[in-house]
């Protein structure tokens, strides 16, 4: 056991000090920080940037109301400003052409054309260099809906006093049921679900391959024979997997800490920029963290043992590239499957997929994140994962035992299977 501890420690300590670890550990939080900071920065810039639009009112009745409505909808510090009003254009085509030129020459950012039958049809067109800007179109739609509604009421000679009330759009509140409590949903489950799935996917792949490379390295540097003259191969394999796994957990810890600090900062920044804004929501309940760690460990052991077996079977990384494909395909599959699973996390297909040990480390975590599957489903997935992992570790140990002493030609699958049966 003391020898095992030595092996784990060497693996852990040399890797922790390696350039690759430092780079990847700093890389992710920095990328995430950039991913959070850049949109904030852009948002802070574009909020001061005025969007100048022209309004062409074919009805000749709504232009003034629309300007007012736009101001109301946007609230304080509005960024949309109507710089030009054209009522009853005599030649719409000519006006449109003229405005188009103005947009291209950056004298204008976009223009709204309200046709003369707009009150009846509700059809309005907006043209800009980039018309699909969610916030902008939302503002325009809201203001137009209100103004057109007023006009319709006015046409029917109905009282306008309660018009604002009529125009109030529906706000559909979304609630997530977790056990006995209900929490209002603002997509806070989706964001961490995608984030966790991505992190799991990346780390399973990264640390699985690290284990494989570590085995190949010991083989190709020929230190294997000395190691084997001191410890049994099973301890060597176990030590390698645990050592690399510990590096992974350390990295998680660093990331989690960095993530917590960043989220807090981002929330603070969002508050500063626009009071009342929520900022990114990345809170995870404690239970979620426990499941995450359990499934990461299980998945890591599963894939690391498979990758270690691949590493033991080959003599060079080039050879490994081919044999590792089936293993890597499994990791990738579980990541790809997360899209259909997210759409319907509770279908029979989703349940079955999330129970399959090769997929459950990513897919079950996702389901736990999106909704709360029955406890027995989670426990069954863990049980299946544990059983399969025991199997793959045993299998890997047998391949490893023989493979680490075999050099030269890349072995065929039948050859590797013979190693497993080898006494």
């Amino acid at each position, binding site marked *: 056991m003391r020898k095992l501890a030595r092996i784990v420690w*060497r693996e852990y300590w040399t890797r922790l000090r390696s350039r690759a670890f430092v780079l990847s550990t700093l890389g992710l939080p920095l990328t995430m920080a950039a991913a959070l900071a850049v949109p904030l920065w852009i948002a802070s810039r574009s909020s001061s940037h005025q969007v100048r639009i022209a309004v062409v009112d074919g009805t000749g009745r709504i232009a003034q109301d629309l300007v007012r409505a736009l101001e109301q909808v946007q609230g304080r510090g509005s960024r949309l400003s109507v710089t030009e009003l054209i009522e009853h254009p005599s030649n719409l085509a000519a006006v449109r052409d003229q405005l188009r030129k103005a947009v291209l020459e950056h004298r204008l950012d976009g223009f709204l054309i309200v046709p003369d039958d707009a009150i009846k049809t509700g059809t309005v067109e907006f043209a800009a260099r980039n018309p699909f800007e969610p916030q902008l179109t939302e503002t325009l739609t809201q203001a137009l809906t209100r103004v057109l509604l007023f006009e319709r009421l006015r046409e029917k000679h109905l009282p306008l006093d309660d018009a604002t009330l009529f125009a109030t759009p529906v706000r559909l509140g979304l609630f997530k049921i977790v056990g006995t409590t209900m929490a209002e949903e603002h997509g806070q489950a989706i964001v961490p679900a995608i984030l966790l799935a991505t992190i799991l996917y990346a780390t399973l792949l990264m640390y699985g391959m690290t284990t494989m490379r570590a085995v190949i390295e010991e083989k190709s540097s020929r230190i294997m024979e000395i190691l084997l*003259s001191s410890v049994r191969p099973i301890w060597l394999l176990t030590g390698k997997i645990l050592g690399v796994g510990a590096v992974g957990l350390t990295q998680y810890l660093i990331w989690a800490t960095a993530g917590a600090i960043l989220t807090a900062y981002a929330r603070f920044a969002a508050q500063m920029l626009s009071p009342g804004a929520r900022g990114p929501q990345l809170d995870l309940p404690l239970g979620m963290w426990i499941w995450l760690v359990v499934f990461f460990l299980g998945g890591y052991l599963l894939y690391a043992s498979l990758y270690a077996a691949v590493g033991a079977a080959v003599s060079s990384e080039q050879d490994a590239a081919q044999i590792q494909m089936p293993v890597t395909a499994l990791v990738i599959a579980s990541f790809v499957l997360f899209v259909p699973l997210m759409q319907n996390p509770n279908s029979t297909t989703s349940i079955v997929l999330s129970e399959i040990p090769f997929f459950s480390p990513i897919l079950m975590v996702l389901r736990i994140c999106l909704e709360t599957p029955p406890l027995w489903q989670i426990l069954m997935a863990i049980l299946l994962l544990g059983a399969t992992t025991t199997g793959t570790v045993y299998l890997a140990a047998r391949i490893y035992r023989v493979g680490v002493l075999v050099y030269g030609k890349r072995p065929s699958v039948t050859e590797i299977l013979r190693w497993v049966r080898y006494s």
Partner: protein
Amino acid sequence: MNSGPALVLESVTKRYATVTAVDRLNLQVHAGSILGLLGPNGAGKTTTLRMILRILLPDEGHIRIFGRELDDSGQDLIGYLPEERGLYPRMIVREVLTFLGTLKGLSGVEALRRTDRWLERLGIAEWAHRRVQELSKGMQQKVQLIASLLHDPPLLVLDEPFMGLDPVNARLVQDCLLELHARGTTLILSTHRMDQVEMLCDAICLLHHGRAVLSGNLRSIKQSYGNNTLLLEFDGQADGYHLTPFASRINRQGRVIELRLKPGTDHRSVLQFLLQQGAPLTRFELIEPSLQDIFIETVQSSHA
């Protein structure tokens, strides 16, 4: 030092898919002795060493080390210098050695202490904090040797220990091994360098096709071949003399001829013949056959 066997192999057999690498091998290595494990390439030397090191497990037979069946803990009693040398290239010399020492059961502190002492002893102390890959091949050899004997094993197995060493370093390593021998360490040497075997080994075991075709005390083996070899040295080229009537084997090497006398041939008749021919003889000596000769002869005759 007790003179019981340090290592006993009893009918040890190892088969691979298509070949029997080691076939019912019996071997005894006396405590404190130096055994030369010889044999042509592919004779089963490496497989035998790997079984002694418990890297491979024999399919049949028993291996006993210092009187007890070899098990995992027995690995700590053995030091190993494999033929394929290798260390972690990116690790610091001192850390690799300490790590390997602890794998043999030393405490971290003790391993470090011994590492420093040995690095000093082999004259590479100033490289202790460098990475392995920065060292020259000869220096890496020395580091590897230290790794094999750091835990002061009573049995040391060395596969081609002088490979890649210049004469100065070869001498240094040899002195090291002789010092260990003097302190009672049992050594097993696998090598193709017969001169070193003759110089260092007490006993030999010659493997061929996985079997011991010749084994025992080196002195008695050579004596059993008798004083029937003539060493002739000439001042000038040694060829041009028709010596086949006298010899069962002739080995010509430049100015030197090694000649195995046919049974019943008197060595003086050879001398007479050469003097009649007016050969510029500078040396005429009756010797035991060289190990090299015995090796070649044994391997060739067991082929038949």
